[in-house]
């Protein structure tokens, strides 16, 4: 069983902050799990083989998530992308959210989805497949200072 947790170093950011978001994927089960540990962030519209993590960022009370705006050049995961996670162990990955979305001043909420659809075996272990969604965290981007 896997869980995904997001965290930010602070709640408020300046407009030009990189906004470092940490995602932690933890094996909450009692047995080891072989997981796709690459945790590559990409657009929801990208082929599933080119992404493991997508973000759902909403602004204020909007229901629709913001569009993923970056362009990511990435291939399929390689055998070394898969790691055995012991019970209780977690892997973390930091994303500079500001590089992927054009965010302006306002209040935001972000949740993440980790998924792996790749069938991969190593010895007697078979890679975990499925989807896990994090709880949302909120943050604020302040107004730009007048020049």
């Amino acid at each position, binding site marked *: 069983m896997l869980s995904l947790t997001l965290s930010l170093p602070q709640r408020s950011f300046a407009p030009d902050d990189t906004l470092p978001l940490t995602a932690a994927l933890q094996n909450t089960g009692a047995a080891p799990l072989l997981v796709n540990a690459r*945790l590559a962030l990409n657009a929801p519209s990208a082929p599933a*083989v080119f992404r493991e993590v997508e973000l759902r960022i909403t602004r204020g009370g909007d229901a629709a998530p913001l569009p993923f705006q970056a362009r990511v050049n990435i291939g399929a995961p390689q055998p070394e992308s898969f790691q055995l996670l012991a019970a209780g162990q977690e892997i973390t990955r930091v994303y500079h959210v500001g*590089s992927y979305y054009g965010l302006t001043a306002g209040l935001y909420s972000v949740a993440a989805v980790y998924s792996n659809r790749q069938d991969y075996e190593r010895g007697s272990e078979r890679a975990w497949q499925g989807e896990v969604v994090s709880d949302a965290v909120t943050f604020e981007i302040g107004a730009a200072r007048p020049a």
Partner: protein
Amino acid sequence: MSLALIFLSTGPAEEPPYPSLHRTLGNHDDLTRFVSDHFYLGLPRIRSPPVAAENKGGGGGGGAKKALSREEEILKLIKAGDRNGAILKAIELYNLDVSAIKGTPAYDKLVSGEGLTSPDGKVTIGDDAFSSPGWLASSIGHEALHAAQLQDGRWNDHPESRGLNEVEAYDYEIANASQNGLSDKEVAELTSRREAEYKQLPQSARDRVDNGDYTPPAKGDK
């Protein structure tokens, strides 16, 4: 079952990435030539044929220092851990047009894959780009093309835009594969990625791409 077998194989048993082309084109050289001849009129390209870099350390004193090839110069920087230096050297020695990129492309260990172009036009290069000098040059060129798409208004939030932008960038890399000295394996990897993105597009967009038109619909269009 091996992961590589599922995702990376580009053997003849798979559906070809250019269904309409593979009837007459049999190998990567032919494909590269076809894409170069038909799909890259007016798009940013490598400006001139690559040349071996001169070793500038001799100072004209008659020392017979062997000129390093561009690959050797860049490999030296990569091996020394100077990834930003390798990026700049690749831009110089492979004559890459990076004029549309905002600022200087820079290495970022947090970037997944080969590279990332941000919505503000900045480019960051990830660890996977450094597997060979040619692959690094090709990957920088890929992101430079995205920056050009952004500058030219061919990048927007329409659902088709991302895929069209990626197919165009992979076609650019394939068209310049020979100039960048890419290996057959590297070209096969690009072809595989291009195929995956192409298959995600709706048929109307595929038809446009087959005719060399990568322009995405306007943001509000259906």
